[in-house]
Every structure is written in C-alpha cells, then in structure tokens.
C-alpha cells in the first residue's frame, strides 16, 4: 500500500472553477485537463505571488522536493491544455484550508470557524457576541550571556563576542543562551 499523501495547505479557493478553450478549428474530442487544487496553489504562489520555492513550500506545509513535484505537474498539465486546446478544470487534490480562529472576550474560549465564508456572530459556548479574531501570542526571546562557573548573567551585547570575554565577577567562561521572557 503506498504511503498516504500529506495534506497540502490552500490559502484561498480559486476564483474560477476552470478555463475553457475557444477558437478551435475542429472541435476537440479530448477531455478536460484536471488541475488539482494544490497544483493551482503552487502556480499561484510561484508565478503570481512571485515567491521562491522555499517560501512557497513553507506556506503549503510540504517539503521542498514535494513542492517542486507539484509545481512540475502543474506546469505539465497547463502546457498540455495549451498545446492541445483542452479545457482546464480546477478540482480535486489533497488539500485543507486553514480556518480562522476567534476568541470570546466573555468566557475567554477560543474557537475556529469551519464555515469559511460566514463570519460567526457569537461565541458557540456562552453565546456572547463580544468576539475578536484570535492572535497567537508569540513568546518573546532574548539572548543572555551566562557564566558557567558562578551563574552570573547579563544581556548579550551584539557587538561583544562572549567566547572571548570572561565573567566580570569570577573570570569564568561565558556561554550564550536564549531565554524566553514570560509575560
């Protein structure tokens, strides 16, 4: 059994369901090309938003080689449609969409909105209508220099190279550490 495909993240659904070829001299009997949603997203990120593959693969939550494969498949399909005069249908594919999160100001619970097109009016738990978009709190970090011997520490100065400076209290060796500031 082949390994299952990881879901690719889609930022927004495409504005169209597909494209139709016109002006053919003889009506084409060939079926439409099915462009998957992840392939549409790859083309959009790379060629419309002008992102490079590394940025685009991070947005779609896939690995870099996988992104390249999706992108190559997308170009191939579009080329087939152009050369053979076939319609393009954007459909299918292994994708998920990120639903947006809200926080209720009354009961402080967080909830998402599975119906992407409608904005919720009130909290599903307490029914209060005082809701706001949820913004994740990112922990703040700072660099500190700590003495290995006596535990003395001070804020790291960007101009200073701690490997070559010593502790002002006991002349011990200093190490650079990343500290999370809890708020």
């Amino acid at each position: 059994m082949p390994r299952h495909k990881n879901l690719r993240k889609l930022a927004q659904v495409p504005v169209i369901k597909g494209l139709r070829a016109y002006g053919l001299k003889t009506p084409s009997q060939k079926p439409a090309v099915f462009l998957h949603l992840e392939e549409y997203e790859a083309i959009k990120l790379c060629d419309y938003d002008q992102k490079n593959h590394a940025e685009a693969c991070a947005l779609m939550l896939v690995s870099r080689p996988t992104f390249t494969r999706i992108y190559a498949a997308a170009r191939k399909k579009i080329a087939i449609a152009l050369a053979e005069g076939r319609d393009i249908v954007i459909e299918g594919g292994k994708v998920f969409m990120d639903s947006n999160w809200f926080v209720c100001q009354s009961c402080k619970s967080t909830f998402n909105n599975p119906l992407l097109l409608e904005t919720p009016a009130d909290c599903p738990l307490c029914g209060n209508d005082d809701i706001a978009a949820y913004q994740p709190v990112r922990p703040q970090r700072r660099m500190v220099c700590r003495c290995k011997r006596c535990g003395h520490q001070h804020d790291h100065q960007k101009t200073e190279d701690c490997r070559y400076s010593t502790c002002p209290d006991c002349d011990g060796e200093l190490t650079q550490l990343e500290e999370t500031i809890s708020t």
Partner: protein
Amino acid sequence: MKIAIAASECTFSATVDSHFGHSHCFVIFEPDSDTVSFISNPYRDATEKAGEMALQMLLKQGVSKIISLDFGKQIQPMMDQQKVQMIIVNSAMLQVEELISMLRKTYQNTYNF
C-alpha cells in the same frame, strides 16, 4: 446538531480533558432534545492516531462541535476538512456540568425565537 465535550471521567463533575484524542470520555449534548449521553473513549490508550479514530467515531454520531482544552497538531487539519468546529476552553477547572448549563443557555435562546 450535537456537541461533544472531551471529559476526564464519565460523570457530570468531571473536568475538561487536556487532550482530545486521549480523553477518557466524550459527553455528547444535544440541545434540540436536551439530552446528554456519555461515550467512553475506546481509543484513549492508543499509541498513535487516537484523535483521528475518536474523530471518526464522533462523526458517526453526528457531532459538529467539539469542546476540549487542546487539540493536537495532526487532528486540527482533519477537523477543518470535516468542518467540525473546535472550541478550546480557557480554564482546565471547568466541569462538564457548568459547560452543559452554558450550552443549554446559549442554544435554547437561539432556538426559542
């Protein structure tokens, strides 16, 4: 519509569980008929994909909203795909009883006008 609460025990005094997939019990509340049922989670000791299997079980019951203290990173995209609403409560001390009375108030108000 049915609302599931991930609880640490199958009682009304139980608290909300900190992990959806490995919670001991699911309390299913149905506002339309005002009924509460308890389902013991058979996948609570599963080493992997507990959340996925529990979600499938709840989907068969027709659950559309799930209340828990936390949802894992793997289960969140699946819930998005199945259009299940996730509600993360703020306090770990909230009891099933309090949650149900909150839900009862909310959903009976909406259905009564």
